[in-house]
């Protein structure tokens, strides 16, 4: 019987697993001792294969809801694309990708948009995920690699600070490193909820939503006052300290306490633990990043890390926890509106020339717009008339979701490639059934920047095509003269050349090397280069080799509670569901564990409104309302509501205000009220 060593399809931890073709067509999942998950799997990983032969699986293209043959579907799509581009120009067609696509698919999608369609409108759902951390990482370090060190460093850290990261639910096997770390070290968690992760912490800071930036400034203030600033490091390895120190001078502990509700004493304790540690690591997650000031918040925590001399020090550093399976690789190879493969900038003439030569096109479009802005323009007079979606479900995942559905309905053509009829696919003119993870080869780049191999166990079922085959088929019909491979290995070879010499350099990565050395860390500029598990030990990839302090100041959330909307609403994930739930809501055992959306509220709020645990209540924001089951818990702040975002309706409430730098929406805080149903 066939068996392959591959990785889990879900989050960026990319747990190693084995897949075995068992009798009767069943596919069995087994654990595998890989350096990231050390043999662990959560309920999502164990049950991932249940989707392969799920009755809901799409097995034929749909045109206006009716099954059609592949050539009919593809001819229709390309015919409409030609008409719309002829009538409205090349930018009439837009492309929307996803952070779950393999490197090969992400690369091919960007190439398809720029070289085949010639549109500037391409962006992806990673904008909702990693964009703030990426922007802050680049402006400080000159590079964006989620963790610039291997995961194993987390377990060895004397002090580990997790900011807005609930790894116990979002990437459970990572908990093995927390267990190792808490046996000898101090774990500090900043989260408005006492999450499963916070429960395991030595010190839990439970701030008002939207105040992480002030907390970072306050921690830096204390680090200065208590003498923990690494002066030789700051002098030798950084620029810009003086302005950052002045900004921190205005955030004395009592001021931060009053704003955030975190006792000053706890702020001091956190700084002492970080400052006294030989090995200290600061990590941010979406809780800190999904704000209209997410980039500045990450910068503030990077400033703290730099002041303490952490980045580049053995066993220490700053990192972010990438969310989606290929959230890292997906943001490196050309799905982003302003980027070309290898993390090249689209406005860099040398980068453009390199890709024009490789792709055999005389020109490339310029920068497009970010995901939310792209969605806002769909079907408008000047905006795109057609949208092609690969590996994303923006009707559920984008903020202010009712507006998203309205924009999609205004399109002349919506094409969705997916393996289920997601909420977005339900609105599509054409749905293209695509292969699942166990049916395709390729590479993924995990949260450590480690390039991994996804291996196919079996062929896609009849009637189903791989995303690469779909893109190649569309390209051929659209008359693209260059080479457009459907074979992942050939695409990877092209990606190596495309990224050669770029910040995210994959030139020296081969599938054989990935197999031989449990993955290869980028940058890896040549086949004789060992790869780069740890960055920054000698210098930073900035023009002067130094890391940059970026002066930032706190600002309040775009929406603060007030009359009519007296509470904060924040969102997040639960263990047994993933992203927009298209996959996990269809797995019976996961649906049994987490069957329905809910809202967490504090007993004080419940008492005030006479709400009992389990009662359906209406949660209302300025943008929408949702009826959710009340979950009365004392693990949440009395001024805060929490709802997981895996179900349709939750993002009807969230705020689509954007970060000015990263264009990240403010998912993590808005004003809301809870109403008892009468």
């Amino acid at each position, binding site marked *: 019987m066939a068996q392959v060593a591959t990785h889990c399809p879900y989050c960026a931890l990319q747990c190693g697993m084995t897949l075995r073709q068992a009798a009767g067509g069943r596919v069995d999942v087994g654990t595998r001792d890989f350096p990231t998950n050390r*043999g*662990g799997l959560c*309920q999502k990983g164990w049950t991932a294969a249940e989707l392969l032969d799920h009755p809901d699986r799409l097995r034929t293209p749909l045109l206006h809801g009716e099954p059609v043959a592949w050539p009919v579907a593809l001819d229709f799509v390309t015919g409409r694309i030609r008409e719309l581009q002829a009538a409205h120009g090349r930018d009439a067609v837009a492309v929307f990708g996803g952070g779950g696509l393999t490197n090969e698919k992400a690369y091919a999608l960007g190439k398809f948009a720029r070289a085949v369609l010639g549109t500037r409108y391409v962006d992806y759902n990673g904008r909702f995920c990693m964009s703030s951390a990426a922007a802050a990482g680049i402006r400080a370090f000159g590079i964006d690699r989620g963790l610039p060190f291997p995961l194993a460093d987390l377990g060895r850290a004397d002090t580990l600070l997790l900011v807005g990261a609930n790894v116990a639910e979002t990437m459970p096997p990572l908990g093995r490193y927390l267990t190792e770390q808490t046996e000898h070290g101090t774990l500090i968690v900043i989260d408005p909820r006492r999450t499963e992760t916070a429960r395991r912490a030595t010190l839990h800071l439970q701030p008002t939503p939207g105040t992480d930036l002030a907390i970072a400034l306050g921690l830096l203030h204390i680090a200065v006052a208590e003498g923990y600033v690494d002066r030789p490091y700051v002098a030798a390895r950084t620029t810009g300290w003086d302005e950052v120190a002045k900004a921190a001078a*205005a955030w004395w502990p009592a*001021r931060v*306490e009053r704003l955030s509700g975190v*006792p000053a004493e706890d702020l001091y304790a956190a700084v002492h633990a970080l400052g006294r540690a030989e090995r200290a690591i600061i990590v941010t997650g979406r809780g800190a990043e999904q704000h209209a000031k997410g980039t500045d918040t990450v910068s503030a925590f990077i400033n703290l890390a730099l002041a303490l001399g952490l980045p580049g020090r053995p066993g220490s550093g700053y990192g972010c926890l990438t969310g989606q399976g290929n959230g890292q690789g997906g943001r490196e190879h050309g799905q982003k509106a302003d980027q070309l493969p290898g993390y090249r900038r689209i406005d860099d003439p040398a980068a453009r020339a390199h890709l024009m030569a490789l792709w055999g096109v005389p020109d490339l479009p310029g920068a497009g717009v970010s995901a939310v802005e792209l969605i806002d323009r769909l079907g408008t007079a000047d905006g795109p008339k057609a949208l092609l979606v690969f590996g994303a479900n923006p009707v559920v995942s984008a903020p202010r979701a009712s507006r998203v559905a309205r924009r999609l309905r205004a399109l002349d053509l919506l094409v969705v490639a997916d393996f289920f009829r997601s909420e977005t696919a339900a609105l599509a003119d054409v749905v293209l059934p695509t292969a699942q993870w166990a049916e395709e080869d390729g590479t993924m780049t995990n949260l450590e920047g480690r390039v991994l191999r996804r291996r196919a166990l079996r062929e896609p079922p009849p009637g189903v095509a791989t995303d690469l085959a779909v893109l190649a088929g569309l390209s051929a019909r659209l008359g693209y003269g260059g080479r457009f491979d459907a074979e992942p290995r050939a695409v990877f070879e092209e990606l190596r050349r495309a990224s050669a010499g770029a910040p995210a350099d994959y030139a020296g990565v081969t599938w054989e090397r990935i197999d031989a050395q449990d993955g290869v860390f980028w940058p890896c500029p040549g086949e004789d280069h060992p790869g780069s598990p740890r960055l920054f030990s000698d210098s930073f990839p900035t023009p002067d080799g130094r890391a940059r302090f970026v002066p930032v100041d706190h600002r309040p959330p775009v929406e603060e509670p007030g009359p009519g909307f*007296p509470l904060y609403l924040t969102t997040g994930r639960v263990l047994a569901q993933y992203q927009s739930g298209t996959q996990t809501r269809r797995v019976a055992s996961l649906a049994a564990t987490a069957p329905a959306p809910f809202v967490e509220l504090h007993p004080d709020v419940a008492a*005030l409104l006479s709400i009992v645990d389990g009662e359906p209540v209406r949660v209302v924001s300025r943008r929408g309302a949702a009826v959710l089951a009340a979950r009365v818990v004392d693990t949440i702040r009395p001024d805060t509501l929490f709802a997981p975002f895996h179900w349709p309706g939750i993002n009807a409430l969230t705020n689509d205000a954007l970060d000015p730098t990263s264009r990240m929406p403010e998912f993590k805080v808005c004003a809301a009220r809870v109403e008892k149903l009468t």
Partner: protein
Amino acid sequence: MSVLVVGYGMAGARLAAELHARDRYLPVTAIGAEPHRAYNRILLSGVLAGKLAEPEVTLAEPAGRGVALRLGVTVTAIDRAARTLSTSDGDRIPYEHLVLATGSHAVLPPIDGLAEPLPDRVAVFRTLDDCRRILATADKSASALVLGGGLLGLEAARGLALRGLRVDVVHAVGHLMERQLDPAASAVLVGTLAGLGVTVHLGAATTRVSCDSGGVTAALADGRQLAADLAVVACGTRPETALARTAGLTVERGIVVDDRLRTSDPAIFAIGDCAQHAGVVGGLVAPAWEQARVVADVVTGTASRYRPPAPVTRLKATGIDLAALGASTDHDGELLTFADPSRGTYAKLLVRDNRLAGAIMLGDNPAVGTVIQLFDRGTPVPEDRRALLLGRTGAAAPAADSPALMPDAATVCQCNAVTKRALLAAWRGGARSAPEVVAATRATTGCGSCADAVHGLVEWLSNQEDPA
């Protein structure tokens, strides 16, 4: 349009920054009497304690065009009719909007021997220069006297004690910080200060301060003499209103302003310690910064009204943790108190109309952040007052240690959603060892943190089957 700001302290510098943030091309001139760049006055006790160096208390200033600074310059007169003012360096500057942020100055009490110019070993504690003056002497001193047991006096005392000086605080009133604390809180604080090397003398009126080359001596009304190498006078501050008074603006204790921070001359505003709004003069940073925000709105054309932030006095430094909110010395209302003097803990909450009217928290109290936010927001106080007074425990409900006591529905393995019931079912289904139970249920295969619990449960089941 242009704005002229007189005073470049916490309020004036903040106003310049607020204006610059709204319109970076708006011409703003700030005139500061002190020769220094803007610094954070509330960090001066950190400088005194040797925790912070002078550059570290410097405040960020608006960068680039727009803001012109004239430091080390005093304003000598305002000509309201001509809308100009005169400076100590002989200049005449026209203004369109004038903002007075002249702050306050230290009060010298009518005590024999305390008059300007102060002797070398005696200093007030107000400005960076005062701080330098104290430090110049403190470096050669073993002991210090602090006259005044208010917030500023205690900050100075703590800072000097942290430098290793033996400190005596002399306070004329019967308890410390009488505007913020009640006698019980003061008693606890006296004990805390003793642990830091600070001796407090209460109800002790100083009648005379004398200096010679050997030190400073304070003579008390009860006949005692306290000697030290250095004395710091911290007997309160008074709004700096001379300029406004001379210009004919309405001045009571401070310069009288309305909800838009306008003085009796609508072209002139006043903010910070020098201003008197609704009968209240300042002294805290939060109101001064809120006033700066409102003035910046008003002069740039945004409707805005000043609503005073709830008064919060907070002293958080090595060894001292003190918060006093609102009507902290009142007693009329629903009163909750807790005192544990031997641990330096005291908590008092005053609730009126189900809202927090005042509070005192001494010692490390985990509820302090929650209490301050409740007070600031005026939100209803929860039914369970105990948690507010003492702090929520923060710990999870204790997990049932014994597998026997754990409810069947309890989730043992979060990562794979395995309940005790599922583990029991695996056992009944024939799994007879931990690895077999794990294989049947997938418990422990995620983060692995439930391994002990699962092994404990299997052991318990084995023992039950095997009656020894």
